[in-house]
């Protein structure tokens, strides 16, 4: 079945402090600001020469309502996931080390069988997932439900690089 949707494109975040969020995503995910618009929104992508954004940041009004402290039980977008441009676990370890270096709050880590994932909170407590795709043979026998939770990967992420 092919519907009209070709791909997931980007997320727009309304943020408390544009400069703070920009700095966070530049460090946490190695994103680059590729431009801004007359409304002051910042467009971020993985490569400085990209012309399509992965993330758009817009400054919220001073009286904007804060997002719920615990994102999980509320109606709305709970989290957004970015895929890592690698199939090598050391790349996910590098993200884990970076998140710890910048003091980002790691919400949880999990082996989903189809992915290995780190969930973290941005400065406005939006939950973001960064994941590494697992090789197909790893979940080929579980195609009816390849998204199990096989426990956390904290120790594996923290382990010294081999």
């Amino acid at each position: 079945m092919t519907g009209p949707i070709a791909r997931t494109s980007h997320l727009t975040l309304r943020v408390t402090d544009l400069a703070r969020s920009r700095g966070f995503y530049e460090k946490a995910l190695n994103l680059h600001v590729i431009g801004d618009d007359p409304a002051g929104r910042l467009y971020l992508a993985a490569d400085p020469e990209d012309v399509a954004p992965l993330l758009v940041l817009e400054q919220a009004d001073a009286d904007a309502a804060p997002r719920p402290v615990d994102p999980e039980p509320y109606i709305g977008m709970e989290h957004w996931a970015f895929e890592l441009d690698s199939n090598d676990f050391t790349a996910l370890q590098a993200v884990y080390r970076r998140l710890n270096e910048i003091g980002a709050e790691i919400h949880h880590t999990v082996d989903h069988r189809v992915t290995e994932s780190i969930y973290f909170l941005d400065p406005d407590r939006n939950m973001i997932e960064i994941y590494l795709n697992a090789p197909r043979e790893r979940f080929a026998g579980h195609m009816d439900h390849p998204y199990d939770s096989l426990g956390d990967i904290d120790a594996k992420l923290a382990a010294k690089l081999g």
Partner: protein
Amino acid sequence: MDFKVRRAGHVVIRVADVDRAARFFTEALGLTVIGSTARKMIFLTADFEANHHMVLVRPARPGAPPPDAGAPIGMAQASFEVGSFAELKALHGRLREFGARIDRSEDRGAVKALFAYDPDGNLFQFYCREGDDAPVLADHFTVRGDLDAALAAPA
């Protein structure tokens, strides 16, 4: 070891009614249910081989309030790319048929965009790249007019 983000993968949405949400994402958006769990998490994608799930819907806490109708801090909009303007038109028709609340359309030159809400009030952008010129960043925000007539015109 350095790292780089390859692409956006998926969005997870807490909804008041999982079955209603799944109908929206399948009937209006044309996604396919690729899996579900006992906890009523439903995984949807356009193409399992390319991206195992693009959208995951799961139940919100019973009685949870809907998203703030104002402009609260947080995830304001999720964007998906559509293959062509013909498909954007088809999507517009499916959204109307479903009774989805359509917000607006924007002609931004090489990028044509349509904005609509899901049944829980989350805002989505659907856009295609159209025309002879490759899009530049400004095509993602320079609004030249709406596409209402072009989207509503017979195919």
